[in-house]
């Protein structure tokens, strides 16, 4: 039987064991995880149907102007509007393709720890399709800014995330104008503090990081100018550039450090300093410990991760390796209640599903309450059981588990599935209930809903 250590590696650190995966990890569960940290290429997600953020934004601009034109000419004839737009890719289609590609990747990857890190960091730097401007570029954001950088230095990840068009649009920096800039003096447009505030509160030093409203405002001024070339830009539409005309001139002070005016580089310097502050180390360490260890993580684990962060200038590969070595992360009892997406991915992996039907996938996401790229706020999806362990939510999981089990019950043996997905981590009661099930179908449902499978 696969050891509990193996199942912790595949389930807590990974995305849930696929058939055969536990056997691979069994000899050296820690080594199996550590090896994934160094496989930089293995989290790349490429697919014929996926576009870069620039192409997606240009396509979106074209779609918007076509729709405006068609709506104006149609005089209320909806069929005519539909006709005029047929053949153009809608932003919603773009995001649907991204969701499908991402889900296929997750159920098949053989570097699941790395993929979990991708998802952790994508959630840390949330951009959400709840704001329309993000819809065309949400998927590209994760592929372009996050995926290549989850085990490099935190600064590189931070810089890539904050200067990606998706983030500049999501948190309004693309519209922000310095009051004393060339544009600011001419027009009735002003400073927008969203990005500055969220970088401090959510991405770096954290809400208790000791900053004040003055720091937020000063940082917002420094960030002005970083924007996205819009539909009427003369060239390079859909790309990020630094627009001097929007940039607030002057020296500004953030968290006690003075930043002289040096154009776009001024903001990069603030990001660099923020990326290695002890408050940032502690904030990141706490979030990682919460994700991998417990909703209320032990102080000792936070300290160790924070130390690894500070000692390596925020090298995330080093921090991730420290996480794998922490004894607190190997507690035998699974305590993290899976998010709906974690539950769904681990289920599909456990059942050995290889092909996904997009329409079913969408219905599933909606029913379970977590559609990718649509987190409710910049804080991302919650990472604690209170948010997910609601009565109706658990029942919806059961309904989904039952429907899926009915479909695959003829080809998956529950006893094999139990051994492969939970191994020695399955408790007596679960074992007994699964073995006593009155059909394969019911056996599978019971595994998927077992306390040990609902948690990781």
């Amino acid at each position: 039987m696969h050891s509990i250590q193996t199942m912790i590696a595949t389930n807590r650190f990974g995305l849930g064991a696929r058939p055969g995966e536990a056997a691979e990890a069994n000899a050296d569960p820690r080594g199996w995880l550590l090896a994934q940290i160094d496989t930089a290429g293995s989290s790349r997600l490429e697919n014929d149907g996926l576009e870069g953020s620039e192409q997606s934004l240009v396509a979106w601009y074209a779609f918007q102007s076509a729709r405006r034109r068609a709506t104006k000419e149609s005089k209320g004839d909806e069929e005519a509007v539909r006709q005029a737009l047929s053949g153009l890719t809608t932003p919603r289609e773009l995001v649907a393709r991204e969701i499908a590609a991402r889900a296929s990747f997750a159920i098949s990857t053989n570097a699941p720890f790395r993929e979990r890190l991708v998802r952790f960091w994508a959630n840390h730097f949330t951009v959400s399709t709840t704001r329309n401007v993000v819809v065309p570029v949400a998927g590209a954001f994760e592929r372009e800014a996050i995926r290549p950088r989850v085990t490099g230095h935190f600064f590189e990840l931070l810089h890539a995330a904050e200067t990606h068009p998706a983030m500049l649009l999501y948190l309004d920096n693309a519209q922000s104008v310095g009051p004393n800039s060339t544009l600011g003096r001419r027009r009735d447009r002003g400073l927008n503090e969203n990005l500055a505030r969220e970088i401090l509160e959510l991405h770096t030093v954290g809400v208790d990081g000791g900053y004040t409203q003055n720091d937020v405002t000063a940082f917002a001024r420094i960030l002005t100018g970083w924007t996205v070339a819009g539909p009427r830009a003369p060239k390079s539409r859909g790309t990020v550039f630094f627009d001097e005309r929007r940039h607030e001139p002057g020296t500004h002070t953030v968290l006690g450090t003075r930043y002289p005016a040096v154009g776009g580089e001024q903001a990069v310097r603030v990001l660099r300093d923020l990326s290695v502050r002890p408050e940032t180390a502690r904030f990141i360490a706490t979030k990682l410990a919460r994700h991998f260890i417990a909703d209320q993580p032990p102080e000792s684990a936070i300290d160790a991760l924070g130390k690894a962060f500070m000692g390596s200038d925020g090298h995330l590969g080093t921090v991730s390796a420290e996480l794998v070595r922490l004894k607190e992360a190997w507690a035998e009892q699974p305590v993290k209640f899976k998010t709906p997406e974690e539950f769904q991915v681990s289920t599909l992996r456990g059942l050995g599903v290889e092909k996904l039907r997009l329409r079913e996938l969408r219905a599933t996401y909606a029913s379970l309450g977590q559609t990718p790229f649509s987190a409710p706020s910049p804080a991302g999806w919650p990472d604690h059981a209170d948010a997910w362990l609601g009565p109706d939510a658990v029942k919806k999981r059961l309904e989904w588990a039952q429907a899926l089990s009915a479909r695959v019950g003829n080809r998956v043996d529950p006893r094999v599935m139990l051994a492969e997905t939970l191994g020695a981590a399955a408790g007596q009661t679960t074992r007994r209930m699964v073995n006593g099930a009155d059909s394969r179908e019911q056996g599978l449902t019971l595994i998927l809903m077992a306390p040990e499978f609902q948690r990781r």
Partner: protein
Amino acid sequence: MSSRHSRRSFIRMMGAAGWAGLIPAPLAFARGPSEQKLMVVVLRGALDGLGAVIPYRESRLYDLRRKLVPPKPGEKGGALPLGSEGFALHPALGGMHASWREGQLAILHAASSPYRERSHFDGQDVLESGGVEVLASRDGWLNRALQHTDGIEAAAVAGALPLLLRGDAHAVTWAPSILPEPDDDTLGRLMHMYEDDEPLHAALQDAQALDRAAGGIEGDARGVARGRSYEPLMQAGANLVASGAAGVVVLSLGGWDTHRNQGAQGGALAARLGQLDRGLAAVRETLGDMWSRTAVLVVTEFGRTVRVNGSLGTDHGTGGAALLVGGAVKGGRILGDWPGLAPSALFENRDLYPANDLRGLFKGVLRDHLGVSRGDLDRYVFPGSKAVAPLSGLV
């Protein structure tokens, strides 16, 4: 979101329902301010306030949007007059009109949140967070208000908690199932399997109680889940209140973004309003005696343009209309100021001027219906809103 308030078992709130079916008289709601019931219906997509509550004596209305205005009161299929002040309800709102005549409907016209731009999500964000700008907080004003009441249980008829109800106060969701119900045998075995797992055991047990409380959805559950018809959702929301499962219920109803073919006495808006009206009638009937202690707040993120657009609809605007209906409501009144439709009165030469702050309405309801103090409302529920006075005498 913190977990400062740990999860309470819904079952405990309901008494000892267990497997045995619905409890008739919920103990938890027998006394105190929580005797008052509140439903908040969020119309997503921006209700056309001028289409729902028609200022039919404004001649400019006909200049700017003739094709969207139903016949005047008294004419065939005409709008339903509201007293003598020159307003009338859309003809599809017959039930609401009856409530008006009974003095149970109050209307705040030309109303808006502090939000002054025109994005649905951003507008809903400000409407629900209770802040003055987008992404101001990650919890909602209703949740914060509940933290200042005597433990009223809250529920949303939705797959996930809407921002309005997110926060430290406990709240549950209920949504119609689009997949087959779990079979009883599997359910029984699962409950057995969860015997040593308190959180999962309580959740699954509560889910069954919640299901019984909400009642089933008849007909096309998938369509209902997608918001194609309001009545079953509103019925479920009322059931949650009537059964004692929740004292505060939030509903989200989409489909109000009438950019095209909005219509006048018939059309897209009329169809939606008709559904809303029937849904409210079902709520009233379901609540029975409880209706006299109930207020239903119907709100939307912003209004729509005064002028008809090129596709016989309206675009995103500013000032809108909010409705407050219920047996507890002192209605039969149009609240607040009316800015009129004169060219100089329009907001940015296109929208109804936002003369009335929605937060005043919310504060009035929270203070006088749920007993939240003025100080808490000013400081905590709607931070920095001291200058916005609660509307008085609403209930």
